[in-house]
């Protein structure tokens, strides 16, 4: 199923390839324009930016001492807020808001917990791993290959479970 969106008079079709190219290009632009202390920190990173946002908030509200990257010391990088805000706008404009088929379950929380632990262990989500791999980081090239490997194993597991 393919989606399209009307932005003013221009009809723009968003595809995963286009959004992926945009995220990648944004990583390069962020690096070129801002020269961050930490490589690619302004790009979308579901691990680093989420951690900074959470830790910064907890440190401010509760006085805890969780680690926050240099760039987010005063104000956290707003990438996660922008991402959620953009998705919220799209879902409201196109009337796609709703609870969906899944439930608020322990299984979902457990999956989230495990993914975030492994994301922090790797030092970035698949998006950050792909941008770092494009930068020539050998560890992240290995990391993204492992992510693909894990996804293949899970897909085969799901397929096998479904055919039993």
């Amino acid at each position, binding site marked *: 199923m393919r*989606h399209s969106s009307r932005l003013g008079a221009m009809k723009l079709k*968003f595809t995963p390839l286009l959004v992926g190219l945009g995220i990648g290009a944004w990583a*390069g632009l962020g690096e070129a324009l801002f020269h961050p202390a930490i490589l690619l920190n302004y790009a979308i990173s579901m691990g680093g930016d989420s951690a900074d946002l959470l830790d910064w908030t907890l440190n401010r509200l509760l006085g805890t001492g969780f680690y926050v990257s240099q760039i987010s010391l005063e104000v956290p990088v707003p990438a996660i807020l*922008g991402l959620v805000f*953009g*998705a919220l706008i799209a879902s409201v404009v196109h009337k796609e808001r709703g609870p969906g088929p899944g439930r608020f379950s322990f299984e979902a929380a457990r999956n989230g917990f495990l993914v975030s632990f492994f994301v922090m262990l790797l030092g970035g989500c*698949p998006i950050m791993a792909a941008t770092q791999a494009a930068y020539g980081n050998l*560890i992240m090239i290995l990391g993204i290959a492992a992510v693909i490997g894990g996804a293949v194993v899970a897909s085969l597991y799901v397929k096998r479970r479904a055919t039993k």
Partner: protein
Amino acid sequence: MNVDIFVIVLVASTLIGYGAERSRFCSVSGIRDYFLFNDTYLAYALPGIFVGALGSFVILSRLGFQMPGFPLMASSPGYTSVVTICLTVIAGLGIGFYSIMADGCPLRQHVRAAMGRHYALAYLLGFYVGILYFYTVGVALMLLLHGLLPGM
């Protein structure tokens, strides 16, 4: 961080969030869709990020913008450490496996949560608890591993 950068990052990420919602963007589900349904629609997401990033790094560095150390290759941090390599492989496999089991990567789950999906809200609860758990337990575990296996 100054106000200009804050606003630019916010606008760029809002556009990405909008596009991600409209396109059902997910960085790992394309692999599952390809293996299970022979559907390649989402499969271009991850290569798209790689190609977009590589293209922008090459073009912008040719235009004279600073890209410190690009391409990193032999100067990549930690690539000679066996411990780092093992942890990277374990982490990557874990992300791939559990993202498929959760029906989407962290970005997709944030987008779904913004759409009001209950499953994604539970996922994000676990996701943020996992971050805190990593900072309290995981970091200590990693330091212990590196300390137990010196010179590797």
